[in-house]
Each structure stands twice: as structure tokens, then as C-alpha cells.
């Protein structure tokens, strides 16, 4: 659905939007949601630095322990726990929460709960690379890379060079077949 | 009253005392054996043909059981114990005095005998306490106990710990021709131990009891027997060092005898698990080398008797932490099958040797009738089906208790029927031909 160059341009566009809406990057910090939100946050941070000349802090948030689907069933594997790594205080900061795909909104809800436990930011804005619809909670992204309408039988996979060796966004049928998407939506 | 005369015809008889091992007829009149020989004339006897494959032996005697009555009837009564005995093929059992109150007084002995005759199943021979309350302080009135019917003395459950007390007991009983039966255990080495000292006990975090805890007292008792000339019988021997001490004594013609339980010649501490219902007993299951020593002691005749140390306990008592649960497992209803399967069928012993261990030797040591089927002897007969395979089912036990490690075991060898005083008191439904062994005593 998207290839490397397109992803790059999209992130640049988002960075500019961030700067515009927030009138600069004062007090801005990015927190990426593990796993793929993290490299996206780092890339946006680098672009913000190249635009403004100011350094922008990034952190990584693991929301596993805040998920609302834990403990709902009998004994079964726990999702793998990774560390949260936020080296700065989030109090009074304007936090940009970053994730790769926005879907039901439950991950973002868990991330908000986690962030609030860390401190009291001045504001939280949401950046996503892809919004695939089908929200189950009243969550809205402030910055969206691309809207990709999907059916429930499909899945959107974001692959990034830092994690997967290549930058691309693909749309898959849940059985694993890649499906032909209709031409791009509006970014 | 008419005396019933029954002719058991054509059965294979094994009677080592008389040197018999072949097809023989036995005529029973009333409660006694009237004749034994090949092709006896029928006369007025009721003919009971013995099916092929069954073996007739002098009735088995378990010289070490715990019947818990008086005082602990929730575990077992004399009636349920006697029922368990005949189901296991035993015509008689000698019961230990650690009841509540302890059998240290003729009143208790008489009570036990009374209950046994009410049950009218296996014969019960009480063993009297060696000391009052088995506290090891004051000797009991051994003469009175013998006159009341006791066949030996013991403080089983406890050792006769004082060497002086043991010496006096051995001296004293020699005038009554009874053995002192000792639960050999040096108390300071036993401590809080609950399992055999070794790797397995360590792995489970259980306090250990070394084999020497038993053997040093066996050695002591052999010396005291040599000193006094009294007869000592080592109860439930388990350690290879104990066997060696007994061997040395026998070489010197000391009056020492010993017994072993089936679990000590079959299981080892490798079997140990956190299940006191199956695996907690005293002496504990020991190492393979000890188990193997017991087997060789049985084979070469150093060990005189197989006795079960039948120790029933209530399920609630055994459902406790390993260290808290009481010691002991039942054994009456599994001993014969275990012995046939693990000794006779594995060529450790001949059937004749097994009969000696289960019948003639116990009778001789306790000086009670039995162990032989000569004319005039009581018609106490254990009928075996050595080739029937059974599966041990603890929930079917006639004993009140179910504490056994052998539940579910498939064993080759079964009891077909048990005859006490000329009466069939038990037949085994699981043995095809057993139902033909029936006659009325009326």
C-alpha cells in the first residue's frame, strides 16, 4: 500500500504539521508505543530536529500491562513483556503519542492510562502512520499518515527498516493472502 | 453334633515340614486334619475335588499386624482386620500391642481374643507389651499375659531402647518359651526422620533415617540374645547392615530370627513421593542395595519370615503433610500376591520356600499350632492359584483402611480360598475355580 519513499514523505509531512499546529517544538516530546511506534517516533523526532534545529526527546512505552484483554480467560500465554523506557519527566510536556496502526483504539486507551501513571502532561496528541477504521472507543488521531479503509477480515502490516529490514505497508487477508487494495485513499 | 468329614481330592499339596510337594488328598474331620496321602478312600466324606492349578498349603500366618482395637477403631477393628487377613490368605495373625490402651494387661488380651472369636474368621494371636504402656520403664506381667493367650512380647511402635531392659526381657521370657520381638531403632539416630537418609530424601527435603539406626540395635540384640540365651525376633527388617548382623548371629547359633515385609523386598526410596498414604512407613523404604539384600536374605534362608506389618490408618490422617502423617501401610490383602509375583514367579524362591516363610516358620517362632498339615493338626489351609493374575483394588479391601502403594498393580498369583478350622472362610470370586471349594460346616 505504501513503499519506502512514500512513507518517508508522509512522515515529513506529519512533522511539518506538528510544528505548525504546536507553533514550534517547545516542550514537545515523542513517546512511541512498542514496538513499531518507537522507530516511527524516532524518525519523526529526527525530522523535527532537522526542521527546527532543536533536539526532541523520545521514549518508548510498553502497554502490555495495561491491556484490557489481559486476564480475561483461563491460563494461557501472556504476551511478551518489554520495558518501558522514558528517560524524561512527562509533567507539563506536550506529548506526541506515536503508533503504526490505529484500529479499535484500545491500544491507545491503554497507552493513555500508562502515560497518566507516569505523570501529568500538559497535553497528549496522537500520531499514527495508518488509520484503518473500525474504532471501538471514541479515540481520534490528530495526525494521520494514510487512511486505509479495511474490512474486518483484513489486516494492515507496517514494516520498518529498523524492525523488519524494509519500509512498506501491506494489506493482508487474515488467512495470509495479500489482497489487492483499491487505489490509495486520501492521506 | 455331626462332625463334618470332607475329602479334598486330588489337589497339589505343598507342605515343607512334612516334605510334601505333590498331588495328595486331605481328609478333614471337624476342625482337624484326619489324614493326608495319595488316593485316600472316600468313606463317608463329602468329596470336594480340587481343580487343577490350585495349590494347598498349611495356612499362612502373619506374625506382625496392627488391629487397632481397643481404642482406634476408626482405623481398623479386630473384625475388619480378621476379614482382611482371610481375604489375604492368612488363617492367623499376631497383633501388636500398641492399641489404646496398650495391651499390657490380661484384660486387654482377653478383650482382643473375645473380639476375634466373635468375628470367627482368622485366628488372632495377641502379642503382649514388654513394658507397661510400652514406655520402656517397667516390665509387664509376662507370665500372666502368656497365660491369657499372648504368644510373644514387644513394644512395637517403639524399640526396647534400654539394653538392660532388653537383657532382662530376654532372660525372663526364656522360661515361657516366647520370643521378644523388637522394633529395632536407636531413638537418638531416628530423631525426626521420616524417610531413608539419602539422595531421594534430600531431594524432597525430608529428614533422613540411616540404615544404621536399625542395624546397631539388631547387633545389640544379637549380642544380648547370645548372652542370655533368650529368643529375639527382629521385626520388619529393612537395612542390609541389619541382615549382616543377623547372619553373624546365626553363624554363632544365636537364637535370633527375623522378618521382612513385602514392601521392603519390592520398593526402594527411588519410589518415594509426597504421598504419605503410599510411601510413609517406619522403617522407611530404603536404597536398592538394601532391597536387594532382603531378596538375597530370603533366598538363602537368613530371613525366616515374611510378615506384613499391616498398619491401617484413616484417610484423613494420611492426607497430611508428609512429616505429619502417621507411619504405616496396610499389607494383609496384597502380601501373598506380591510374594508369588515377585519371589516365586521371578525364581527368587520356590513355592515350598515361600510356604516356609509364611507358615511353618511363623508357627515355629511363635510356638502356635500350624505350619503343617499332618493328622491331628488344625485344618487351617491356604489355597493358592499361582497363575491367576489379579489387579490390586484398594477400594475393595476388607480392611477399613486403603493406605497402600500397590493399588492398581497387576500381579500374577492369587489366593483362591482360605480354610480355618475346617471351615471355608473366604473364596476369591476372581479365581475361576474357587467356587467349587465350598462345603457347609453345619
Amino acid at each position, binding site marked *: 500500500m505504501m513503499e519506502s519513499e512514500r512513507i518517508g514523505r508522509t512522515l515529513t509531512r506529519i512533522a511539518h504539521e506538528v510544528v505548525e499546529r504546536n507553533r514550534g517544538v517547545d516542550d514537545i516530546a515523542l513517546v512511541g508505543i512498542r514496538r513499531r511506534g518507537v522507530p516511527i517516533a524516532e524518525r519523526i523526532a529526527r525530522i523535527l530536529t532537522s526542521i527546527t534545529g532543536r533536539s526532541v526527546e523520545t521514549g518508548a512505552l510498553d502497554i502490555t500491562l495495561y491491556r484490557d484483554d489481559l*486476564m480475561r480467560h483461563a491460563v494461557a500465554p501472556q504476551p511478551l513483556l*518489554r520495558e518501558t523506557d522514558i528517560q524524561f519527566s512527562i509533567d507539563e510536556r506536550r506529548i506526541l503519542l506515536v503508533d503504526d496502526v490505529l484500529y479499535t483504539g484500545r491500544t491507545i486507551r491503554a497507552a493513555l492510562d500508562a502515560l497518566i*501513571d*507516569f505523570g501529568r502532561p500538559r497535553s497528549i496528541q496522537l500520531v499514527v502512520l495508518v488509520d484503518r477504521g473500525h474504532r471501538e472507543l471514541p479515540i481520534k488521531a490528530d495526525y494521520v499518515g494514510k487512511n486505509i479503509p479495511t474490512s474486518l477480515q483484513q489486516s494492515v*502490516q507496517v514494516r520498518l527498516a529498523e524492525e523488519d529490514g524494509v519500509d512498506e505497508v501491506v494489506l493482508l487477508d487474515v488467512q495470509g493472502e495479500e489482497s*489487492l487494495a483499491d487505489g490509495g485513499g486520501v492521506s | 453334633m455331626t462332625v463334618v468329614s470332607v475329602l479334598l481330592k486330588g489337589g497339589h499339596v505343598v507342605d515343607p515340614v512334612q516334605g510334601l510337594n505333590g498331588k495328595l488328598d486331605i481328609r478333614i474331620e471337624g476342625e482337624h486334619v484326619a489324614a493326608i496321602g495319595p488316593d485316600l478312600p472316600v468313606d463317608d466324606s463329602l468329596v470336594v475335588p480340587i481343580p487343577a492349578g490350585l495349590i494347598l498349603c498349611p495356612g499362612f500366618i502373619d506374625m506382625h499386624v496392627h488391629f487397632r482395637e481397643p481404642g482406634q477403631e476408626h482405623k481398623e477393628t479386630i473384625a475388619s482386620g480378621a476379614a482382611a487377613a482371610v481375604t489375604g490368605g492368612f488363617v492367623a495373625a499376631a497383633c501388636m500391642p500398641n492399641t489404646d490402651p496398650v495391651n499390657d494387661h490380661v484384660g486387654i488380651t482377653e478383650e482382643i481374643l473375645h473380639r476375634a472369636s466373635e468375628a470367627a474368621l482368622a485366628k488372632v494371636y495377641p502379642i503382649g507389651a514388654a513394658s507397661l504402656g510400652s514406655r520402656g520403664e517397667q516390665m509387664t506381667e509376662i507370665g500372666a499375659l502368656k497365660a491369657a493367650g499372648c504368644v510373644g512380647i514387644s513394644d512395637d511402635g517403639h524399640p526396647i531402647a534400654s539394653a538392660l531392659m532388653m537383657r532382662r526381657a530376654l532372660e525372663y521370657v526364656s522360661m515361657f518359651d516366647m520370643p521378644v520381638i523388637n522394633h529395632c531403632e536407636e531413638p537418638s539416630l531416628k530423631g525426626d526422620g521420616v524417610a531413608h537418609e539419602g539422595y531421594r530424601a534430600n531431594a524432597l*527435603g525430608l529428614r533422613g533415617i540411616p540404615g544404621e539406626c536399625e542395624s546397631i540395635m539388631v547387633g545389640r540384640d544379637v549380642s544380648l540374645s547370645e548372652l542370655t540365651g533368650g529368643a529375639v525376633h527382629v521385626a520388619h527388617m529393612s537395612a542390609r547392615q541389619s541382615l549382616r548382623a543377623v547372619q553373624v548371629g546365626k553363624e554363632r547359633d544365636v537364637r535370633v530370627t527375623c522378618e521382612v515385609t513385602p514392601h521392603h523386598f519390592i520398593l526402594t526410596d527411588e519410589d518415594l513421593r509426597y504421598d504419605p498414604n503410599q510411601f510413609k512407613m517406619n522403617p522407611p523404604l530404603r536404597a536398592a542395595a538394601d532391597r536387594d539384600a532382603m531378596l538375597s536374605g530370603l533366598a538363602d534362608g537368613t530371613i525366616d519370615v515374611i510378615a506384613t506389618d499391616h498398619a491401617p490408618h484413616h484417610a484423613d490422617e494420611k492426607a*497430611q*503433610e508428609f512429616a505429619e502423617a502417621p507411619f504405616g501401610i496396610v499389607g494383609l490383602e496384597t502380601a501373598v500376591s506380591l510374594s508369588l509375583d515377585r519371589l516365586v514367579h521371578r525364581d527368587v524362591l520356590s513355592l515350598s520356600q515361600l510356604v516356609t516363610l509364611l507358615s511353618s516358620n511363623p508357627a515355629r517362632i511363635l510356638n502356635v499350632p500350624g505350619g503343617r498339615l499332618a493328622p491331628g493338626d488344625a485344618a487351617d489351609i491356604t489355597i493358592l492359584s499361582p497363575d491367576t493374575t489379579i489387579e490390586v483394588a484398594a477400594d475393595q479391601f476388607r480392611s477399613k483402611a486403603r493406605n497402600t502403594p500397590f493399588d492398581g498393580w497387576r500381579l500374577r498369583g492369587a489366593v483362591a480360598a482360605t480354610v480355618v478350622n475346617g471351615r471355608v472362610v473366604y473364596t476369591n470370586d476372581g479365581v475361576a475355580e474357587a467356587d467349587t471349594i465350598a462345603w457347609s460346616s453345619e
Partner: protein
Amino acid sequence: MPVEVRETVRASSELTPPRLRSKHLLSIEDLNVDEISLILDTAEAMKEIGTRRIKKVPTLRGKTVVNLFFEPSTRTRTSFEIAEKRLSADTLNMAGSTSSMLKGETLIDTARNLEAMSPDMIVLRHAASGACHLMVDGCSARIVNAGDGMHEHPTQALLDAFTIRERKSQFDGLKVAIVGDLLHSRVLRSNIQLLRALGAEICVCGPPTLIPVGIERFGVHATTSVDEAVTDADVVMLLRVQLERMHGHFFPSLREYFALYGMTSKRMERAKPDAIIMHPGPINRGVEVSSELADGPCSVILEQVANGVAIRMAVLYLLAGVEGDEEVS
């Protein structure tokens, strides 16, 4: 934008995550190396929660955990309690007595009565080896062994391994000396199982009266010489000496014990220069270890305590496990 045809790719976000196989933690013996690594890795993430301003996550919210301690132990119970509360569980502390004088209810009855109140997890400490195995029969709650008699103390061994892992790069070939009352120690048994599984070499040391018969069968070298044990050791682990042992004729006095087996800075000179000193606590100063060594730079005793909370959080979290829905965003 051109759509390129790609090869079929399995749509799984991650490989099936590793898991614990049993819903109980009764002994290290039951764990395989993957499970041990899982617990240690999870504990790293849990440790971070203790550094936050709000040291709480909602993970075990609404779950009831009962700390059933039949042996007094403020330290271990507190550690579990903190772990439970950090995961937002509801904790309940129950004390019982194993003295047969005071005993009322049997352990099985206690388990059944608790069961009727549907606790999700029970953390059990008891003076009898095998007590946890007995409780498993009476209870459908998840059971965590917090120390059963002389048998095992799994979370102690796990936090010990976690502490070692933080200080040393690998376990393979690591030389660990364990000194003290080997005979009565459940910490020893759990540590032997765990460290051997991870590839460490173990030398155990104590007075001959306190070395269990057949200890070599556990795969360790045993010696009565503390100098031999400590030579070239990477880790020196000291076990608590209980004062009652003097009455069992195990050794004549604490003074003699310290003289022959107490760990001092002088003795530690034989160990590797970066060797660490460990102790499950509480320490008897001047018996197992000299004060200066216990408070010195190579002591990680206080780190063990801190790590105890993280490990217990990891264990509770992993045992409470649930079928996760991997696609949540």
C-alpha cells in the same frame, strides 16, 4: 500508486509468545530453561515499574491473592505483598501455625475453606516439605511456593539468578560457591537446580555434619574447606545458620562456626577480584559473614532484596496468564 504483487506472507504479528507450562510454581525442578529465562526477562521489565513515580500497573486488578504463611517471615511476605500491590491485586495476609500444639485445621481443610472463597492465587509458606503439593490437591487457585520446609524456595533462587545475571555476563561456566548449613536449606536445593540448569559450576561447603548424604548426586562438588570453595569463585552465596543447630550437635558454637566457615574479606581474597557476595537474609553478622564484607562493595545483598519484588511480580504476572488477543490496535 502501483501495487506490487508479493509472496504470501503469514499474517502473524509475533511468533507464539513463550509461556509457563504449569499454573503453579512449586519447585525449580519443574521449570525448564526457557521458562526460567522467561521469568528473568519479565522481571527486568517489572523492575522498571519500581522506578516510576506511580509504582503501580493495573494488570492484576480485581484478582485476589492470599499470602498464607504458616512460618513467620516478614521479609518474604512483605516482598510478595509489595509485588502484588504493584500489580493492583487485592492481597490478603493469613498466618497459621504449624505447631501441632496449636494446630486446629488440617492443611487440606484450610485449602478447601479458602477455595470456597475463590482466591485467584495463593502464596504458601509452610514448615513441612511438600506442603504445596498437598495444597494443590485441595485447591484450584494458582499456588506459589514461598518456601516449604527443607524442600525448595523457588522465588529466592530466581531472584538470586536475576541478581547474578545483572552483575555477570553469563552463567555458563560461572563458578558459584555456596557455604553454610547445606543440610536444612531449601534455598540451597532451589539454587542448585536453577544454577545447574543455567550451566553454572557449583561447589558447596559446610561442616561435615551439615553436608547432606549423597549431595554429589545433585551434580555439585562438596568440600568442608571454605578456602577451597572460595578459590576462583565468581559468586559466593552464604546460607543462613540457624542458632538451634547448636543443639542438634551439628557444630559446637557460633564462634567456632565463624572461625572455620565465616566469610571475611581475607577469605574472599581467594575469589576472583570481581566476585560478589550473596545472602538470602536475614544475615547473622559475625556468624555467616563479617560485617565489613556484608556492607562492602562486593556485597549484592540489598540488590537481592530489590530484585525479589521484581521477580515476584514477574511470577505472579506469568502465572495469572491469559489468552491474549494479539491484534488489539
